[in-house]
């Protein structure tokens, strides 16, 4: 039987794009139920019970969601403000290049940079000391590895806000928002009405899927909370890797149980966001 090129492409897609994901999920499920893995003796709910009893997963999920939500809200808000007030300025040759520069900084460098600025011996602490606001480094407030995750949120905003700004600027241009705003003004709308009734709704409606995607990405972020986070509670990815990679081999299954819950959660989110919907397509 001859396989056509299309079928070969689909086979490749399944092998590279689908099998690894479901293989990884299956392995994690089997490990979490004690069916595979070092020291595991057979099917058990013990590890799942232990995860729920310890409450680590729920705490970590709540902590991660709060951080991701605050970061996304602040980033979207900041990017909207910049896009609305400075659209024309960002079209200049100089700004149209430099607004891309923050995209060249990876998460691990952002975390390192934030640490260098906000730690007790960091640059801001030194400025505070020079201004006479603190007497020693210990007098500087905890802004990294802190309870309220201020360092993590600031690092996330640094990473995500530039992307949202570029996204909003692109939608602003493609959706002819400037012309729509002029039309509304000529019909008697004031600036606040134009922003609240036209610009913000269009920008958010066109980008909400990307905003939700970024919330999910931040939820699973690893290197930033690893460097700037505290010992307890930890963000989801850090907690999962801590459990899976620790020396106590009996705890590995619990790590996989958390990984399974996290994977199911984001997969459901993907299903809700990208499930094919019945609608009339306008293909070109």
């Amino acid at each position, binding site marked *: 039987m001859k396989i056509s090129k*299309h079928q070969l*492409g689909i086979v490749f897609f399944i092998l590279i794009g689908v099998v690894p994901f479901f293989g990884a999920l299956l*392995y994690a499920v089997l490990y979490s139920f004690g069916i595979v893995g070092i020291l595991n003796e057979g099917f058990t709910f013990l590890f799942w019970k232990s995860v729920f009893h310890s409450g680590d997963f729920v705490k970590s999920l709540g902590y991660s969601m709060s951080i991701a939500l605050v970061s996304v809200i602040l980033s979207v808000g900041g990017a909207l403000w910049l896009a609305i007030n400075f659209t024309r300025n960002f079209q200049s040759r100089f700004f149209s*290049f430099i607004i891309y*520069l*923050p*995209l060249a900084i990876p998460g691990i460098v952002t975390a390192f*940079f934030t640490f260098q600025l906000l730690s007790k011996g960091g640059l801001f602490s030194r400025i505070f000391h020079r201004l006479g606001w603190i007497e020693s480094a210990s007098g500087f407030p905890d802004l990294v590895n802190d309870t309220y995750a201020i360092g993590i949120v600031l690092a996330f905003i640094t990473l995500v806000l530039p992307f949202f700004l570029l996204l909003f600027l692109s939608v602003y241009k493609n959706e002819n928002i400037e012309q729509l705003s002029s039309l509304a003004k000529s019909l008697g709308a004031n600036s606040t009405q134009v922003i609240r009734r036209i610009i913000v709704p269009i920008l958010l409606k066109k980008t909400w899927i990307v905003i939700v995607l970024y919330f999910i990405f931040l*939820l699973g972020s690893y290197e930033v909370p690893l460097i700037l986070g505290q010992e307890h509670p930890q963000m989801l990815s850090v907690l999962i890797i801590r459990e899976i990679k620790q020396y106590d081999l009996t705890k590995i299954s619990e790590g996989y149980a958390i990984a399974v819950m996290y994977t199911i959660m984001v997969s459901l989110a993907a299903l809700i966001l990208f499930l*094919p919907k019945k609608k009339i397509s306008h293909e070109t």
Partner: protein
Amino acid sequence: MKPKSKHIFLVFLTILIFFPFIFLVLLSMAPEWRFPNILPQYFGPDNWQTILRSETGLLHSFLISLLISLSVGIVSTLFGFLISRSLYYHPQRKWLNLFTYFPYILAPVVFGACLSFFFLKMGIFGNITGVIIAQFLIAFPYALIFFSSFWNKKIKSYEDLVATLGGNQWQKYSRVLFPLAKSMLLICFFQTFLISWFEYGLTSIIGVGKVQTLTIKVFLFIKEANYYYGAISSCLLIFPPVLLLYINKKYVFKNRV
């Protein structure tokens, strides 16, 4: 906002954008820059000279990162382009596209941790091949999603036209599809290169510390509290993407207009 306040804010924004780059370069060139000094007492290339001569292997890490990212970028872009075509022509393409989002949306480090068993069994755990394959598994769905917008009825009609005029498969790709997708291929290559270049979590899990890319080096130096070398590694990590952004902006977008 008043024009003067706008101008002042734009100056502040410019400083804010350049500040991380300037700060990291300063930190990399300062042998001693500690509390309470606001500025380092000495600037010079000493740290750079020392680290490049020493056995920290930073240059080696740079080359490994480059090799991995180039491989991931090229393979993901080509496979993404070719396989996205197969997906587009499949009657169930919407459902197949849905599957591409699962590995894309999952945290790479968690994906890596769950995959590590299979990598170990295949003997590609803790080596460059393993890291390239692992990164390919997260860059490939991105490329598929990226190219899904390229295929449409217009492209299909071009393909039909080539076939009607007697063109073969090679001619169809080399004379029509690749030239049409040139800008998208370049952008996809840059993006997948960057996904790989910036990747830390997955690399640390699959590379188990044996494959020391630049991101791994940055983390190791931070852990050792060697911030000056950490800054040098960060500089090596951020300046190639800046160059790519410049090329992207100057040539790719210019050609698209």
